[in-house]
């Protein structure tokens, strides 16, 4: 049997990799991928807690479902914004997105 700590450590490492991706990447699409990794790490964390510590309550599982839903909404909206920005500025590089208005 796999101990709970394994899952938690795994999700922690996954989260940290996501953070690195968000900080290091230049393209907004890639930043989005980092965010996806972070969200997944969190969902995995919730599910692990629910499965080990909270049987019969499912709060963790339900929250994971919500996270996936919100992640889908976030991907859609973020991609729309990126497309919009790309059309105007011809770039999807977050470093160059410095203008507050145009």
């Amino acid at each position, binding site marked *: 049997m796999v101990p709970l700590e394994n899952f938690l450590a795994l999700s922690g490492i996954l989260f940290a990799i996501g953070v690195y991706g968000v900080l290091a990447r230049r393209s907004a699409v890639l930043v989005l991928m980092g965010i996806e990794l972070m969200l997944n790490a969190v969902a995995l964390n919730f599910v692990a807690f629910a499965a080990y510590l909270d049987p019969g309550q499912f709060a963790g599982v339900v929250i994971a479902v919500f996270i996936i839903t919100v992640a889908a909404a976030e991907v859609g909206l973020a991609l729309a914004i990126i497309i919009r920005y*790309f*059309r*105007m*500025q*011809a770039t999807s590089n977050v470093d160059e997105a410095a203008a507050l208005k145009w």
Partner: protein
Amino acid sequence: MSTWPTTREMDIETDGFDTVDMSINVGPQHPATHGVFRMVLTVDGERVVDCEPYIGYLHRGLEKLTENADYRQSMGWWDRTDYLAGMCCEGAYCMAVEKLAGIEVPDRAEYIRVIMMELSRINSHFMFFGAFGADVGSMGTSFIYGWRERERIYDLMEEVAGDRMFPTYFRIGGVTMDLPDNFEQRCRWVLDSVKKGLEDFDGLLTGNEVFIERCRDLSPVTPEQGINWGLTGPMLRATGLKWDIRRAEPYSIYPHLKFEIPVGRQGDVFDRYMVRMAEAYQSVRIIEQCLDEMPKSGLVLNPSLPKTLRVNDAECYLRTEGTKGEYSIYAIAKGGNKPYRMKLRSPAFCSLSALREMVVGTYVADAIIILGSIDIVLGEVDK
């Protein structure tokens, strides 16, 4: 592949910023180009923003070859221009030389020629229905249906001339040999099967809603545009203009024959298809008339021809209604047994020059069927 143009891959700057355009090479080896033809499509997603046709892969120097050979020798090369309707090309070449040298053709030979030319026209149009259906995406079913009738016509041609595709059957001043004995019976049987074949295409393509949705209102051409772009033949008649060389500037025995000139209304792809359907049917009518009216016996080759044909200074322009449009020959003779110049106005080449105007702004899939609707034959385009 560095010779392929890549400079067209450019960003189209609008006032905003759009996606990157992409150029795709359709051809030279591509199922939709019906031979070795290449068009470079610049596409924005699925939209065609530019189209550039490249020809010449099948160039054989036909006109130059003709200048260097005896009048009778070049016959076989002219077969191979519009190779789907070899007899039509032979007929045009023979008539041009006859007009140049003032040679009479026996009556029976004229009828035989018209029968063979119209059979060739049916042949070519059936190839069009089959290939066009395949372009629109009928998985080769239309292709095989077209080939069924073509095989029968080719068999008949083989019986008459000894060869299927490039019979070299016509001669200056007539035809090589008389028809076989049971020709009339065989020919009527072929015509019946052609009529059945047309009905099959009605069932397979004409009445198919998807087919009509794809073809209707696609690249409509007005008569003015058609004339300005140099369209001829079915392409021009689809726009609604009643222009057929067989009527407008009659040659051979066409003035004696009863047939209609089918026209379209809006010049779209569907009209082009329908005009060809109707033309194939009219060709059947013409052949039936010829079979009824032709002299049952007689000469098929002018017997008074010299062994070597020499033409003094002369010049002529002969227009015929080929299968793809106006198949015209401008011939100059300056003495000797060879022509000084033989210029071919190949119809598909001229129609092809309007490709860009018709294709730009449509979808990639539409570009393919617009190209298909022109019904190009590369042997004739590249000469």
